[in-house]
């Protein structure tokens, strides 16, 4: 029955407030608001204080996530659902948020220099995380849209947080194209509502089970939903903004975007496509598979020709989105596809953040650029890094090898599981393409190592400035490196946790 009609024929049901179900989200919202007020009322609060408060908020949310770990229910009349995807995504997102906080806290100013980054970046980070966590938990297309907009708006502003022209340009591009794609998503939601009479994923799932209905209208909506999600996870051909934006934005924000947006985007992708629209898998699978092929190959091929590390990482993140799409394509028929994708997101988030952390570290080595265009992230700046900064180079090697998918590191397992799920779902051809793409990708990851380990630094080494004290960045780097190695050596527990994410409540 039409939900509007339903509302009037019954006495007004008072909404049951399930505080516990959304406790982590509430914690994030409260923390964000508190940080906003701190920024407003205490303008001289240092970045350390703000970062500490942010981390406290994240810790509270994490504690509540753990408290809620075994909760499985649909809350707020189907607005959010607590299931494996939700809790796994919550955990990963909060960890990513903590690392991003450390990176942001470090900033790019050195001792004695004023910081260009505004203090608002901390509350915005929390709001962005709130949007992401909500997106991962949303079980109603309306909530999906609102959550997506919360995270997008926060990211637009964060992308342009510094006065650098490149950052401003990145923010503008991201905003314009993001708004454009949101329009598609919204139209998709409208068409889905029109076709099924509901925006609730469970009810949409029921509607897809009706064999008599002509699904064309719904499929058009599904296609537009796919456009919106594919844009967020930067899949080809909706990827063009990614390199420009990652290159232009401040490195901490780029890292956050690369890691966290993917986690949230794929969580909702899995929930909507593998969950609610699982009945239509025959129709949408070619779309996702086609996008996966394009994404993997275009991402890898274009990464090869880059000479800027941030830009290269952007293309690399595009090709990783392609591998994840293999997981999504498999997920509707093979539950392992869900767990493989979630595990992939976990490992990918730490690897890519780690890589960006090294970028942030290296960008501090050169003299601060006067033209204020962008950050120092050209491959040139990495020549001979191993001799000057063996630790940074060593960590860079760990992240690059993990991104390549070389066995003892976490990235290998991620690929391995996703590819296995693909084969299990009968998408062997797709896996073949994925393997070929991952082979191409080794080319550019290892090139970074060649530059760092085999080449002599250019110019006068004396011109290099000290990176300054980087306690926050150091901790973040250590954590990311440790996680990447540790997950590689002992992936079992995390895979088991991902397995529990296989059941989608809708």
């Amino acid at each position, binding site marked *: 029955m039409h939900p509007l009609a339903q509302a009037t024929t019954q006495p007004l049901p008072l909404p049951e407030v399930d505080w516990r179900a959304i406790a982590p989200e509430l914690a994030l919202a409260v923390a964000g608001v508190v940080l906003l007020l701190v920024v407003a009322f205490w303008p001289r609060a240092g970045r350390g204080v703000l970062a500490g408060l942010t981390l406290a908020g994240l810790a509270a949310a994490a504690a509540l996530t753990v408290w809620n770990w075994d909760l499985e229910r649909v809350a707020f009349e189907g607005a959010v659902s607590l299931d494996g995807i939700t809790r796994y995504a919550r955990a990963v997102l909060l960890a990513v948020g903590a690392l991003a906080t450390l990176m942001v806290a470090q900033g790019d100013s050195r001792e004695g220099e004023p910081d260009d980054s505004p203090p608002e970046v901390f509350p915005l980070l929390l709001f962005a995380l709130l949007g992401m966590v909500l997106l991962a938990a949303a079980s109603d297309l309306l909530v999906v849209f609102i959550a997506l907009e919360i995270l997008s708006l926060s990211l637009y502003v964060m992308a342009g947080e510094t006065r650098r022209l490149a950052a401003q340009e990145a923010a503008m591009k991201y905003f314009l*194209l993001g708004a454009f794609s949101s329009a598609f998503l919204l139209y998709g939601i409208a068409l889905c509502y029109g076709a099924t009479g509901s925006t609730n994923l469970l009810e949409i799932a029921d509607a897809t089970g009706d064999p008599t209905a002509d699904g064309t209208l719904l499929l058009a909506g599904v296609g537009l939903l796919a456009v919106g999600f594919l844009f967020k996870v930067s899949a080809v051909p909706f990827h063009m903004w990614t390199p*420009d934006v990652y290159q232009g934005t401040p490195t901490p924000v780029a890292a956050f975007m690369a890691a966290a947006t993917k986690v949230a985007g794929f969580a909702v992708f899995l929930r909507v496509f593998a969950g609610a629209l699982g009945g239509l898998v025959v129709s949408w699978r070619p779309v996702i598979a086609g996008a996966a092929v394009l994404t993997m190959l275009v991402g890898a091929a*274009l990464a090869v020709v*880059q000479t800027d590390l941030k830009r290269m990482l952007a293309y690399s993140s595009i090709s990783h989105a392609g591998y994840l799409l293999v997981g999504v394509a498999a997920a509707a028929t093979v539950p392992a596809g869900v767990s493989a994708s979630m595990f992939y997101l976990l490992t990918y988030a730490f690897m890519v953040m780690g890589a960006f952390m090294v970028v942030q570290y290296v960008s501090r080595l050169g003299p601060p650029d006067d033209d204020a*265009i962008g950050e120092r992230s050209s491959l040139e700046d990495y020549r001979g890094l191993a001799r000057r900064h063996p630790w940074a180079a060593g960590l860079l090697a760990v992240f690059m090898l993990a991104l390549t998918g070389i066995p003892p590191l976490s990235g290998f397992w991620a690929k391995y599981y996703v*590819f296995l799920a693909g084969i299990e779902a009968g998408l062997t051809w797709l896996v073949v393409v994925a393997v070929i793409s991952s*082979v191409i990708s080794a080319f550019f990851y290892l090139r970074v190592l060649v530059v760092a380990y085999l080449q002599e630094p250019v110019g006068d080494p004396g011109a290099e400035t000290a990176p300054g004290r980087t306690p926050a960045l150091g901790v973040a780097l250590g954590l990311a490196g440790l996680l990447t190695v540790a997950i590689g050596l002992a992936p079992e527990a995390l895979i088991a946790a991902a397995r529990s994410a296989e059941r989608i409540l809708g």
Partner: protein
Amino acid sequence: MLFGQRLRALAGWIATLAVAAAFVVALAAFFELLSHPGEERTQILRGYEWFTSGDLRVAFDLRWDPLSALMALVVTGVSSLIHLYSIGYMEHDERRETFFSWLNLFVASMLVLVLAQNFLVMFLGWEGVGLCSYLLVGFWFNRRLLVVNPLGRLVEGEPDDTREVWAPPAAKKAFLANRIGDVGFLLAMFLIFATTGSLDFDVVFGEAGALAAGTATAIALLLFLACTGKSAQFPLYVWLPDAMAGPTPVSALIHAATMVTAGVFLVARTHTIFEASGTAQTVVLLVGAGTALLAALIAIGQDDIKKILAYSTVSQLGYMFIGVALGPIGYAAGMLHLVTHAFFKAQLFLGAGSVMHGNDDDTDIKHFGGLRSAMPITFWTTMAAWAAIVGVPFTSGFYSKDQVLAAAFEHGGIGLLAWAIGVFTAGLTAFYMSRYVFLTFFGERRWPEGRHPHESPPVMTVPLIVLAVLALVAGFALTTFTGEGGRFQAFLEPVLGAPEEHESLAAAAGLSAAATGLAAVGAIVAWLLYVRPFDWLALRRRWAGAWRPLAEKLYVDQVYEFFTVNLGGALAAFLARNVDQRGIDGAVNGVAELVGSSARSGRRLQSGLVRSYALGVLGGAVLIVAFLVFRP
């Protein structure tokens, strides 16, 4: 600081001792293994459990059986000698501690590869050796590096060379070939898991016989694709000669003795899978034989001593593949050739390194001659290895090559073709190897004025002597203590299976005579051409039509280059120009444009890029929606 300096000086010794210790441990474990009866000689070390979930159990399990013991002994033994040699060879390199750490990393990876008990651990080693090889080949390239991006922005190097995409070309080639091979390994691994549900060797090999023929063929051929990359077989062999650009000990260790034999080892290790597919075995046989012949021909045309040895390695690897493609009768022969080749080819490379060391790093064979008296130890040890590779009776190469050829003959059918090619190639081998030693050590002195060739220090010559002795006696020692196929075969039988009873080896004597005779002819021709006072360069000019193709490596590289560099470069440039418009320089342009427009945010849209991005989004949306609405 002082301590650091001293440590740097000691780096080579520390690394050498570490590998030597590994060798001692391997030796002890080997004798422990021998104390068990044949059937119980497979021990599995249940190592660190990577994880178990569901039906998949992956652990860092190691396997100690005759095959892996053999490989481990060869790897650690030869490595110890080469490490020792490197102390002298790399004495003046300022980054020698880096060199030794990578060399050690290589040995560790190689051990992981040969000791693996499942495909995943093996893949770990497989990738590890590839990575080290890549790094070590590129070790010296920072001296004359060419980094040119596809859009032609030169970072360093020749200003008009825009073909090289980014890295030292040799390392790049090695990398590409190996990555193509890795596709094979990965896909084979997925296929194995998809069909047998496990990656553990025991489980997989237990089910290998029950595989459908098509599946077995697919897995075997994918594995063999990996082998052609790692072990430099046709069509992926082209990287190995180029990899000679690395330091010579690297060539000796990685590109002659150990890593390149990993493919042979892989076929032997997974022999049950290959046995399940006759097609795959035939392919291996033909590729091995073809590569042996092709590389031997090209070796004749080379003037660079390391290139000659590199093509020789490719050719000898071909022999090994012939051996392991033949089934149980050939496995032991192929593995024996692997062992003996490790000794004599390592010696040859180290000898070549010694020659280079004493001749200002010159590698052109035309600039040597008569070095016999200047570097006697190098000369005599190289002659020992020469005897082995040429197949002088009772040297190690004689036994191993002979056994491979005998097995091929016995195998019959397509094996006869391999046998014929092998015998003919033996003649070619004798010719080009003789050419190498004659032009280097015999005849008149051709080195330029002012050069004073000198013998290398003991730290380099001791390994030469040890390897030379091994090259002479290893074959005899390993085979002739017992009859019937030899002790070596019996040792490997628990792993590789016993051949069916074969007829008396009466014919074998005749067969070896054929190969030995042809080799003698090759050596004599080389003597006539290169040792007698004879203007062989004039001969070469007269027969330029025949010479050119050999010198030009039969044009295989050119064909590849056309496809990879021209087409690949064009594709990359096309992508950079048309798909990623900002590409490499675009980012700067875009910003410059912004600066020009005084950074008013509204103007930014005029750059046109955002519009084209939006068009991309729109185009994708139309495609997707149209596909779903008007679905077929």
